[in-house]
Structures are given as structure tokens and as C-alpha cells.
């Protein structure tokens, strides 16, 4: 900020939430190290200071998948550990307060899709993330609830992690392992390929965990809110939104696809201070 003609003016405005990138990198590296160390530990060569937990032990979705077996038989689904239930609880609490922050800030699969999206932005510029016709897109957005129901059903019925064979997240951090099914690798490849055209395609259309956390957008404590009195209606917030949410037409973002990335806020793309905010109160 500098003072010109008696007014405080910001000369440089960040166009993105840089600290989110730092957090994303941190969790990507952390999970990658844990996954590699788990493989090393199985052959007795693990690094002692690092956790050698399996990927299933540090994935909160495992906690959701095993809820039925816990409720009906007090047993965890095969390969899932208590830690997954703990993480599921923490992430749920985080989401009730701030929305699906896990998706926007922590999930490494979301991070990798964003990295691929950078290529798409350079290649297609304004057309990027606008290839899918709106009607089709609106329908496809609900497909992830179908995936969620299917995953919960087959897991409850079998008592095993059937979804592992189709899970691109598991494939991403185990592609070197014989445990990964070709179907999971194919879905990972498809996800990364589509990410060049569409921002976070897995999150938008297929992620069952995103479906669970997305529901918290309907009642979260801190929401993205837009001040209609100061809004310039330039549409910048909507253009920037990775999930294509029309923020500029809403007073409070209750869209089930919001990932709380804060890229639409006045701290990032919105040029007017205090207009788009993550807040528990109201806006002017």
C-alpha cells in the first residue's frame, strides 16, 4: 500500500491465494513421502522419522466408507484403520465451519488436477474450463452422488474397499505398486487428461468424498458472501471460480460444489475490497 494524493492505494494486487498453493504443496509432499515410505517399510528399508502408514490410513474417505460396518458390527472395512475415522471426523468439522476446505487446500488429487489445469489455461486461455455445455455440465455435477451411493453400497455389502480398484487418488500415490488396478490407473490418466480442458474434472463430476463434503456448503458456518452494494458486477469472481459457480449472481454461495479456495474473494480476484468475503456475519 502507498499513499497518493492523501489516499491509500494498493499498487500490487495478488491475483491468487498464494498461501493455498503452499499448503497444497505441503500436503502433496507429505502424502507422497508417506506413500513412498510405506513401500520402503514393507521391504524393511523405511525411513524411521517418517510415518510408514498406508495410504488408506491417512485418507479420510476411508472413514466414510467404513461407517456402515462400524455401525453394524463394530468392525472396520479391511485395510481401513482408526486413523481414517479420526481424519473423517476432523475434516467434517472443518467443513461444517468453513466448507470443503479439504478439497480446496489439502487433497493432493485436487492439487495435481490444478497443476494440469495450468497447462490448459496456457493452451486455451479464456476457453479453458468452459468446454462442457452448461446443460450437460449441470446434470453431470450430480453424478458424484451416484458414485458415492455406489461406493457406500458395495463397501457395505462386501466389507472391502472395492473403490480402491477405481480410485485415482490411490493410483496417484501407488502407481509403482502391484496393488494398483489398471482401472484405477486408467481413471487417473483420464482425470489428468481431462484436467487440461476442465478444471478439477474428478472433483466436479465423480469424487464421492467431494459429494459428502459438498453437502456442508448448504449449512456451513463461514460462507462466501458477496456485497451487492459495492459489487461492480464485472463477473471476475465467477470467471475465476474453478468450479464454475456464478458467484456474481449470489449473495451467499450455497452451491454444493464450492471448495472454499477463496480465489473469488476480494483478497484475490475481486477488485473491490470487502465485497466478496469468507465470513460468518453479513456483508455491507
Amino acid at each position, binding site marked *: 500500500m502507498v499513499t497518493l494524493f492523501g489516499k491509500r492505494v494498493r499498487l500490487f494486487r495478488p491475483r491468487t*491465494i*498464494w*498461501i*493455498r498453493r*503452499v*499448503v497444497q504443496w505441503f500436503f502433496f509432499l507429505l502424502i507422497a513421502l508417506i506413500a513412498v515410505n510405506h513401500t520402503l517399510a514393507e521391504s524393511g528399508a523405511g525411513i524411521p522419522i517418517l*510415518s510408514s*502408514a*498406508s495410504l488408506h*490410513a*491417512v485418507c479420510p474417505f476411508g472413514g466414510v466408507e467404513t461407517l456402515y460396518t462400524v455401525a453394524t*458390527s*463394530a*468392525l472396520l472395512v*479391511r*485395510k481401513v*484403520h*482408526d*486413523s481414517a*475415522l*479420526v*481424519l473423517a*471426523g*476432523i475434516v467434517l*468439522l*472443518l467443513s461444517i465451519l*468453513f466448507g470443503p*476446505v479439504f478439497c480446496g*487446500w*489439502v487433497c493432493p488429487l485436487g492439487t495435481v488436477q490444478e497443476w494440469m489445469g495450468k497447462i490448459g489455461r496456457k493452451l486455451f486461455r479464456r476457453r479453458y474450463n468452459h468446454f462442457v455445455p452448461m446443460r450437460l455440465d449441470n446434470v453431470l455435477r450430480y453424478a458424484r452422488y451416484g458414485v458415492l451411493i455406489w461406493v457406500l453400497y458395495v463397501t457395505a455389502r462386501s466389507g472391502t474397499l472395492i473403490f480402491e480398484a477405481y480410485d485415482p487418488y490411490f493410483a496417484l500415490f501407488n502407481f509403482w505398486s502391484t496393488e494398483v488396478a489398471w482401472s484405477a490407473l486408467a481413471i487417473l490418466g483420464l482425470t489428468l487428461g481431462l484436467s487440461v480442458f476442465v478444471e478439477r474434472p474428478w472433483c466436479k463430476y465423480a469424487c464421492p468424498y467431494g459429494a459428502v463434503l459438498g453437502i456442508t456448503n448448504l449449512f456451513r458456518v*463461514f460462507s462466501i458472501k458477496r456485497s451487492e452494494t459495492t459489487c461492480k458486477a464485472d463477473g471476475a469472481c465467477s470467471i475465476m471460480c474453478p468450479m464454475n459457480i456464478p458467484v456474481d449472481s449470489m449473495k451467499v454461495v450455497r452451491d454444493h460444489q464450492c471448495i*472454499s479456495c*477463496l480465489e473469488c*474473494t476480494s*483478497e*484475490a480476484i475481486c477488485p473491490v475490497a470487502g465485497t466478496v*468475503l*469468507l*465470513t*460468518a*456475519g453479513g456483508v455491507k
Partner: protein
Amino acid sequence: MTVTSKPMAVIVFIMLFGGISFSSLMGWWATESTKEPVIFTEGEFAGQANPVDIRGSYTFGDIANSFDVTSEILAQAFGISVEDPAAFAVKELEAIYLDSGFEIGTASIRMFVAHYSGLPFDTTGQEIYMPQPATDILLAKENLSPEQIAYLEAHTVTVGESAPAEVPAVNAVPGETSSTTSEEYTIKGKTIFGDLITWGVPQATMEQLIGAPMPDPAMKVKDYASANGLDFETLKTALQAEVDKVKP
């Protein structure tokens, strides 16, 4: 109250790592199986370990610690010839039986342990296969219900009787017999009654020779002889004669 990106980052770290630390303090955080299956909480078997909770990461030794079955009998039942059966991990079974055309893995171990230990096990809607030696050992226990016997008979696969752990079992077609060397049909000090069952010696014949009901299949013939005041060499010769009659 408004939250911006930097406080958000701090909140994410505090909630995640604070939550993990808190759950560790409370004893809730576990990234590995305890290798102790959950127990039945009610009914006739309350307090006993539940075989349904046996996982692929368990070793035969882990199972032996929680159930009334030894590592040796598990190795015998599933054709595992390794120096230390207690260290054999259940999850390795599937790879060994991969070429059999039948899924013999953790579920098979669960069912075997349940039947062997006389614990309840629900097979409804499940197709769980069992290698022939395992079925033979279970039938020799004579504690199965007619329904359990019928299920076993319908789900038994004849495989290589001494399939080494590192080599996939061969001839995995029901009804076929496998090749076993004459060396392996020789009674030695470490031979258990389960071996004799697997080799095809009828239970009635063994009971006639020892003059008593069939002992635990996991028991060594030598140990049985010394425990019952029998001469091991004499018993061995008599049993070997029966083995020679049935060996291929």
C-alpha cells in the same frame, strides 16, 4: 467475523494436526492394525476373538496368538512350506493361489480359523474356497454342522498339497491330484497328524493304530507317542505302512 487466506491456512494446520495429536493422546489414532481382532461382545462366544476381523496384514503367528490354532496347522492347511510359518502374512496367500482359478485368501483363512476353533462364521452370500488339506483338517475335527460340511464340500479345491510359498500351486482343478515327492510322504519327527490326513490316510485307520480318538491335527506324531507312552519308532513304522498304501 471474516476469515482470510493466512488465518485459513493456520486453521487448516491447527485443526488437522491438532486433531491428530488430540486423538493420539486419547488413544484413538492408529494407522496400523493392532493384530488383535475384535471380540464377540455378546452371546455364547462373548469375549472370544472374532475371526471375521482377521486381516491380510496378519501373520499366521498373529492368528495363533488370538485363536486356538497353531501357525503350523495353518501352514499345513494352506500348503505353505516356509521355514517360519508364524511369519507368513495372510495377504500373500492370494498370490500363491492366483493360478488356481479360485480365490483362496483372507476370507478362506477366516472361515478355516472359525471352523477350526468352533466359532460362528456366516457364509451367506459368500463364495469362499478352501484347499483340500484345509478341508481335510476341518473334517477331522468333527465339530462341523451338516450345513458347514456341505458348504465346505462344495467349495473345496484340490491344489498342490505341498505348494511352496514362492511357487504358485498347480493343477488347481477340483478332483485332480497333485504331484508330491516320496520324500514328502515320509514320517519324520516333525510330522503332524494333519500331514497324515493330507496325505490321505483315513482317520479310522489312524485311530485304530493309536488305539484312541484322533488327536488334534496340529499335534506331532512324535509328541503324541511320548505323551501316551507309545514307542515312536513302532508307531511311525505302522503309520508309514498306511502312508505307503495311499501315496501316489
